[in-house]
């Protein structure tokens, strides 16, 4: 009896005719083909597709790129003057930063990584506020809800599930809000990247994951980070579309992100976008890139500079002349001068603020500690 129960029951019907059926639960959940990214990074500049672009948008993008480049230069200069503790530059990556900001509506949310102050600035954030963290002041210099820009996120990829949760919450509430979350090529290796994309796809959350593949995670080149055909190919494993775009072609990046945002907004779910770009500067001002890469590589990428590409195209198409260039450069210079000026002041921080905002209400324990510090400061003042 025992023996019998350990084997299986026979199905009804004729033995000889029996053939295994497909596993009942299995059916492909989605057709993978449309989820796969393009085989070559999408490019608009230099193709006929540029003609379809709105000239006003092209000029706006140009102005923002020029301003962004100038912002990067100014922020880097501020590190040398000791006005910033550290600056991770996006020189060479301005097309991605600017396109990310401009692809969003005002009600949408941007989730920047620690490198993406420029995207926040292009979205309208005051550069001084955007740089608060990097200047050594309090960690977030702005009210994230006011600008719908999440705090700059340093632990890599941890901002991605935040974007998913926020987008999901907005959708549950019936709000027409999309979240765009930025991450680097290195950040895609973190578990949080995986978990965020999976949650987003399962929940069909209105999120766009935007990977700036700038070739390096500090010193580690992409080849040591992944063996994938492209990072965009990861999308299919979550059941979302992957897109691959030339990250130095601002029009292409803007187009791909705008499409992904629109898709998310109409309930189509998340998209993973990989932009191929290059970090022209070192990882930060504190890094020495000569230790791990050759100048030749940098030079090759300079020839594919995002501003250069757009400038040429616009010039050729008669959308930009010397006056236009000058106007953009001057606007950028004004921004930079103002930034330099304003960053020259020493912010005044109240040490007693250490004990505020740890909790909604200060605990007795923190009150004790605050009293200790206050006494110390008073003693210092007397001394």
């Amino acid at each position, binding site marked *: 009896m025992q023996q019998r129960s350990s084997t299986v029951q026979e199905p009804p019907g004729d033995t000889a005719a029996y053939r295994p059926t497909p596993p009942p639960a299995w059916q492909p959940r989605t057709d993978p083909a449309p989820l796969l990214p393009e085989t070559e990074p999408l490019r608009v500049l230099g193709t006929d597709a540029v003609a379809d672009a709105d000239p006003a948008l092209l000029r706006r993008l140009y102005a923002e790129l020029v301003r962004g480049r100038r912002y990067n230069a100014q922020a880097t200069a501020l590190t040398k003057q000791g006005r910033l503790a550290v600056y991770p530059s996006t020189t060479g990556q301005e097309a991605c930063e600017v396109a990310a900001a401009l692809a969003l509506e005002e009600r949408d949310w941007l989730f920047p990584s620690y490198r993406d102050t420029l995207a926040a600035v292009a979205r309208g954030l005051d550069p001084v506020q955007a740089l608060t963290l990097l200047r050594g002041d309090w960690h977030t210099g702005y009210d*994230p809800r006011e600008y719908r820009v999440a705090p700059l996120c340093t632990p890599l990829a*941890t901002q991605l599930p*935040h974007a998913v949760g926020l987008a999901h919450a907005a959708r*549950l509430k019936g709000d027409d809000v999309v979240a765009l979350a930025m991450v680097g090529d290195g950040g895609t290796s973190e578990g949080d990247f995986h978990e965020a994309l999976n949650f987003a796809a399962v929940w069909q959350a209105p999120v766009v994951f935007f990977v700036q593949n700038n070739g390096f995670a500090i010193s580690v080149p992409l080849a040591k980070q992944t063996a994938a055909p492209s990072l965009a190919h990861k999308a299919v494993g979550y059941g979302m579309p992957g897109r691959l775009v030339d990250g130095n072609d601002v029009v292409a990046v803007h187009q791909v992100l705008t499409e992904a945002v629109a898709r998310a907004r109409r309930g189509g779910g998340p998209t993973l976008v990989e932009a191929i770009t290059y970090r022209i500067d070192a990882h930060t001002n504190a890094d020495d890139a000569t230790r791990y890469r050759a100048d030749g590589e940098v030079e090759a990428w300079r020839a594919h500079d995002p501003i250069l590409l757009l400038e040429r195209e616009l010039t050729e198409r008669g959308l930009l002349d010397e006056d236009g260039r000058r106007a953009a450069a001057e606007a950028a210079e004004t921004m930079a001068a103002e930034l330099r000026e304003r960053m020259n002041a020493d912010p005044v921080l109240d040490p007693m603020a250490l004990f505020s905002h*740890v909790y909604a209400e200060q605990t*007795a324990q923190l009150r004790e500690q605050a009293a200790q510090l206050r006494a110390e400061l008073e003693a210092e003042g007397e001394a």
Partner: protein
Amino acid sequence: MTTATTGPAAAKAAGKPKPATMAQALQRAMRDAMAEDPTVHVMGEDVGTLGGVFRVTDGLAKEFGEDRCTDTPLAEAGILGTAVGMAMYGLRPVVEMQFDAFAYPAFEQLISHVARMRNRTRGAMPMPMVIRVPYGGGIGGVEHHSDSSEAYYMATPGLHVVTPATVEDAYGLLRAAIASDDPVVFLEPKRLYWSKSDWSPEAPAAVEPIGKAVVRRHGTSATLITYGPSVPVCLEAAEAATAEGWDLEVVDLRSLVPFDDETVAASVRRTGRAVVVHESNGFAGPGAEIAARVTERCFHHLEAPVLRVAGFDIPYPPPMLERHHLPGVDRVLDAVARLQWEAGS
């Protein structure tokens, strides 16, 4: 002239107390909070259709829909990380970690974001969130199912850490935790899930804000300072101690963060002796902080050093050996006996 709506008669009408388990009280706390506040969302592994592996979320998905009580994918960092995003948008997520040890994958989100977001944003982005963690041993659980991980949470500024020991407190503390504008790690003593008490879900006691310890038993000889699953052990020890002539006071901390120095120090100053009792490993465990701060505050009232009775400094042992690891009545009494009775009063 008003009709009396309080008092025994009304309580009876509102639902006569009958035996309820801690799991039921927890369920009820979530249910009531969800009914009152549409921003409260429950999420975690198996919390929906199944009602949780301990059935603590039983019925919530059915009553409030899957959007309010959501079975998530199996990824704890993802659960907590998306909960952070939901809180950013104004929701109050109540997250379930299935077991203590399975909360560890979420530690980066917990330490670097949940605990710090309010501080980072200077108050602009609070994290009103409850992270429910079934904890502790004594249930015959295999590896990873019996950890007492409260030391990690206590060492992380920005979190509140609370744990009930009674059915009433399970309800009251969880309501208070959900109402809190700060993240609360809510530790649920697994082996008390099925503990019962006469309790009326229809007329629960008023809910105090978290942060208050309670004297569960008044005594004069020495104070047992404890919480969660060790509270019943200490009460039993206190009863047994009467045979030896000791009249022990038992303080149930309920809240590890914030810590109720006032109640604890007042008790120890009265008794002059104290033993801290918990299941968690002793070394660098919760008792270290408790002993240190009690000593700082009550030094000249102490007849003996504050002693600690805790789990050994070993990985949680297999079910067949756990009774040797868990602090029981005898070990508590042994510690009491070592409180240098000859020395003082």
